[in-house]
């Protein structure tokens, strides 16, 4: 595995071939906002929060899936990127119904943290306020589609780590939403092993543990050792 040298934010850094800009940046303490990325799961480059500028390229590149090249000059923080990230977080907040004040994940949600990180204080765009349901048929867990940002972490962890592939996305565009098996209530699923990995990886209050309220913040992913062990393994 040969080592490549490049500059990120003007700093000379080195990384192994095949590693992504995100990996190398984080190894060198350079922060890049992410949402759909989760170490241990395959990357899909869907939320676009981690797009960065590469010198000599008009296009922006998602740091989570773009592998490094020798002599690459990467800019992570620029006015343009900051504005794009703020807009992406705003779009997510306006797509469905993210009412932090009454959400089970209040003060324990990555989308909420991102709003602070990108400096979002309000939404210029109107809230789309779609109708979305809550499925609490599972004995221990529930899903609130109002809070889902379609990052598909749950789909990936269920497929790649648990192997049950209970979750998938149905429909297209902004009508897309998560389903269990043939679109049946979660409690009736016969592929779900009730392992709860999806609940642990969900960045927002969409997947939650029943009986555990906002006051009892749930433990987050760092405690899932087997996820880190499967670094980047895709199936």
């Amino acid at each position, binding site marked *: 595995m040969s080592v490549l040298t490049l500059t990120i934010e003007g700093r000379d850094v080195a990384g192994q071939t095949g590693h992504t800009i995100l990996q190398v940046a984080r190894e060198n303490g350079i922060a890049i906002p992410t949402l759909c990325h989760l170490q241990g799961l395959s990357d899909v480059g869907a939320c676009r929060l981690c797009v960065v500028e590469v010198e000599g390229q008009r296009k922006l590149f998602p740091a989570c899936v773009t592998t490094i090249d020798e002599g690459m000059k990467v800019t992570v923080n620029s006015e343009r990127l900051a504005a794009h990230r703020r807009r992406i977080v705003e779009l997510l*907040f306006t797509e469905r*119904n*993210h*009412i*932090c*004040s*009454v*959400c089970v994940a*209040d*003060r324990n949600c990555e989308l*909420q*943290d991102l*709003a*602070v*990180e990108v*400096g*979002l*204080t*309000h*939404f*210029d765009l*109107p*809230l789309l*306020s*779609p*109708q979305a349901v809550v499925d609490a048929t599972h004995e221990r867990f529930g899903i609130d589609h109002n809070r889902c940002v379609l990052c598909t972490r749950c789909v990936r962890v269920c497929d790649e780590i648990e192997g049950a592939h209970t979750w998938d996305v149905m429909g297209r565009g902004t009508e897309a939403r998560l389903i269990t098996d043939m679109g049946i209530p979660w409690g009736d699923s016969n592929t779900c092993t009730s392992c709860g990995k999806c609940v642990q990886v969900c960045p927002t209050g969409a997947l939650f543990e029943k009986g555990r309220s906002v006051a009892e913040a749930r433990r987050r992913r760092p405690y899932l050792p087997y996820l880190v062990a499967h670094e980047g393994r895709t199936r």
Partner: protein
Amino acid sequence: MSKPRLATIWLDGCSGCHMSLLDMDERLFDITERVDIVYGALVDVKEFPEDVDVTLVEGAISSEDDLRKIYEVRRNTRVLVSLGDCAVTSNVPGMRNQIGPAAILERAYLENVTINPQLPGPMVPRLLAMSRPVHAVVKVDVFVPGCPPSADLIHSVLDDLISGRVPVTAGVTCFG
């Protein structure tokens, strides 16, 4: 130089933001010494005055009454501050936007009533089709998200405004 004229108003909100304003405890008197409170829950003024320097607006715009008031506030205020998630994002009052006001009124005033169920009549302000954040209707100068924003944050915002600084809430505080 006369003291800045401060007003507070609360539209479709739960008064939690005003309570948080009072939660600055003794510092409240430091603020009241440096400003004239010309309108609000703590003073007995009925008409919104003219040339107000700063108005803290709590609550979403949900009824025609809110709409009338916010236009009046905007006309007479230099710096309009959207205080709290309801004003900034329509928050909980906005949750009815998914199903519209009719369903809410029917549930409360027709279904859940023992005798003479009826929808409250012409004297009360009509609910708008959508409950909206303040900046969806008028220009807002400062956003203070939070449900409620902490007393410290409200104090620092007021302190900045009184001293002529532009308060920065981006990256400091968040919704919820």
